[in-house]
């Protein structure tokens, strides 16, 4: 069980989710869950449109951005056709289910149960006129950026 040089490890991560599209939310959730799977402490800080992922009335309805997304390889006008984003989203969700990636509401529950701490950004919450009542129960608190840095001290910060 010994190696010659001990492997370097990360003990703690703080991940910022700042976007409200499907492809903007998933990477942060996967990284937070992956951290816990490795025994790494993890915080998730939702800011700006990233708040979509923890709003109880919206988190089940998050869609893929089909406009302004070069990765889709689509002309802008096709991406803008009504219903196209919903279609692309359901196709992507089906692919994700195949490789065992849960939908966002189940994923939020999974990371919460895994011991990830979820926080909403105070400036964004104030800007959108929200309160704790707007958020899913896994959200522990609304914190300022200063408090975020205090919590993140000694760990790695990842912005998505």
């Amino acid at each position: 069980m010994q190696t010659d040089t001990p492997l370097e490890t990360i003990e703690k991560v703080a991940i910022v989710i700042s976007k409200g599209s499907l492809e903007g939310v998933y990477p942060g959730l996967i990284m937070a869950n992956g951290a816990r799977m490795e025994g790494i402490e993890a915080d998730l800080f939702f800011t700006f449109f990233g708040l979509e992922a923890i709003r109880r009335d919206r988190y089940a309805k998050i869609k893929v951005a089909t406009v302004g997304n070069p990765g889709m390889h689509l002309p802008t006008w096709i991406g803008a056709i009504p219903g196209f984003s919903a279609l692309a989203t359901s196709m992507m969700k089906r692919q994700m289910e195949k490789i065992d990636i849960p939908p966002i509401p189940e994923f939020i529950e999974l990371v919460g149960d895994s011991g990830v701490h979820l926080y909403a950004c105070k400036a964004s919450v104030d800007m959108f006129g929200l309160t704790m009542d707007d958020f899913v129960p896994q959200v522990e608190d609304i914190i300022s950026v200063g408090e975020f840095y205090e919590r993140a001290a000694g760990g790695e910060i990842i912005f998505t």
Partner: protein
Amino acid sequence: MPTTLIADTPVDLDAEGFLTDPAQWNEDLARAIAADNGIPELTDRHWLVVRFMRDRYLQTGSAPSIRSLGKESGVPVKELYELFPKGPAKLAARIGGIPKPRGCI
């Protein structure tokens, strides 16, 4: 591949301490690996998870995700992390004598 002696059993381990041959595994070995990884005693709940991981790997050739572990093993995700604080899937795989899970979830 260096051979290591754990609980009087010679085993082949990879660099991270996972058995490379699940057939070399036995229960005494599991207890010794658990003790070495911060779990002094394996309870029935630990065994449930370890056996589920091992059986699933032997049947399908890959270890289950934390998602299916939480849904299908009979032990919910919260409890999984209480039983194996340093990572349930990884630790249960190590104790169960199967390779490290490769999935991202």
